[in-house]
């Protein structure tokens, strides 16, 4: 064994970690090499001195101070710790959540469709407000007529019906399209409160599409027409249909034409039309008194499957949604 090797084993020899052969070899070298023996003795003396160092003791009152400090932290510190510790994890998450909330609020403020969706949750108006609204001039009716005229017709316009007293009454009722009572749901629940009219600055801008996806009016709307349009769209957005149903037909195009004729005959008003997959969804409004005849006529057009029944009572005019498909 070399001197370097022997001296490298001093710690293991002192701690009893050498196997028997290595221990014997190391001790054999120490017995022969005076220099290594001197080093080994110095090594042992050093270890002996270390082990004689006196034990250090904690100062008096240390345990009490620790126990006092271990009490619960004040609630603000605990709350801050819960909110922000660990910093690398919680701070980015909280910052991201804040950005999402601010972004969502900004979007709602800036997007008219989302604002309307939020307004759907608004509580019902007071009865006085509803009556006051019903006394407004007929500009909304004119706007409703404009909307129907501007929509690209999917079927040829219905032929002019012969003039009868019944037609006159129906025409009169058409004039009351936006009667305040029509806003009230059939079961007598309070009508939802309509949203505020668009601000004056927005009245002359390009109007947004209707709720049912009607194409936007292309001409520059005047302030009264814009109010009327807004009123119709609010009606569409907030008033639920009285009845919905599915009409399965062999010839959808032909059925649409006949349905248009039927609406003209019974004094119904088409409120909107859109395509949903293979079906055409037509939303119309008709006098409640004309419903029996309308439903019989639907049954002759195809297989009419209503969803629910027409509730008794309710407003004079009812909204019907017909889903027309093969």
């Amino acid at each position, binding site marked *: 064994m070399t001197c370097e090797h022997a001296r490298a084993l001093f*710690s293991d020899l002192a701690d009893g970690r050498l196997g028997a052969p290595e221990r014997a070899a190391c001790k054999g070298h120490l017995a022969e090499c005076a220099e290594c023996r001197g080093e080994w003795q110095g090594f042992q003396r050093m270890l002996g001195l*270390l082990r004689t160092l006196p034990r250090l*003791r904690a100062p008096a009152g240390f345990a009490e101070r620790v126990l006092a400090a271990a009490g619960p932290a004040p609630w603000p510190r605990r709350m801050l710790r819960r909110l922000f510790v660990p910093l690398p994890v919680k701070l980015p998450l909280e910052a991201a959540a804040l950005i999402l909330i601010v972004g969502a609020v900004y979007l709602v403020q800036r997007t008219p469709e989302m604002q309307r969706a939020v307004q759907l949750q608004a509580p019902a108006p007071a009865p006085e407000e509803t009556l006051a609204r019903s006394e407004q001039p007929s500009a909304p009716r004119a706007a409703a007529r404009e909307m129907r005229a501007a929509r690209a017709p999917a079927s040829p316009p219905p032929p002019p019906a012969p003039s009868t007293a019944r037609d006159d009454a129906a025409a009169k009722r058409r004039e009351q399209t936006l009667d305040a009572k029509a806003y009230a749901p059939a079961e007598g629940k309070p009508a939802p409160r309509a949203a505020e009219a668009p601000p004056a600055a927005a009245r002359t801008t390009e109007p947004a599409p209707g709720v049912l996806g009607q194409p936007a009016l292309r001409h520059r709307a005047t302030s009264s027409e814009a109010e009327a349009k807004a009123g119709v769209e609010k009606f569409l957005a907030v008033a639920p249909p009285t009845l919905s149903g599915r009409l399965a037909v062999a010839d959808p195009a032909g059925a649409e034409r006949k349905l248009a004729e039927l609406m003209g005959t019974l004094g119904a008003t088409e409120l909107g039309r859109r395509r949903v997959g293979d079906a055409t969804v037509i939303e119309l409004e008709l006098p409640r008194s004309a419903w029996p005849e309308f439903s019989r006529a639907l049954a002759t057009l195809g297989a009419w499957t209503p969803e629910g029944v027409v509730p008794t009572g309710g407003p004079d005019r009812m909204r019907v949604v017909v889903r027309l498909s093969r």
Partner: protein
Amino acid sequence: MAYQHRVFAVACRMLGSRAEAEEVAQEVFLRVHRSLADFRGEAKLSTWLYAITSRLCLNRLASGERRMARGRQTEETLSDLPSAEGDAAARLEQKEIETALHRAIGELAEERRILVILRDVEGLSYEEIAQALQLSLGTVRSRLHRARLDLKDKLEKLMP
């Protein structure tokens, strides 16, 4: 609090100051108090305490808060150690030896100092040291041997 003296002793020998050692020791026990539910019992409680103490001392020495030069393990901070029994000459000699030892330990690099303190002063086994410091057994063995050789050289210079 049964381990308060051991924790304090390790911190005091590492940091060379009783005041700092008390701060660190208090922090050790507060951390244990907060994390006791997480202690899985895979190691001895004493090993866990030594691990926290060693880590806090090494962090403190490595941080900028403390600018104590290596080796300035001040004699006055450890001067109130209990003196040896016996006559005055023996006590004086013992005091000189202890002072030289404290100074030599303080002059060791922190990574080697902690090994000498845990093994030769506190009496931990190689395995316990490896677990506390999260080192391999081979690293503990080689690093401890280097630390002891360094300490021997320094002592021989201080006490020829």
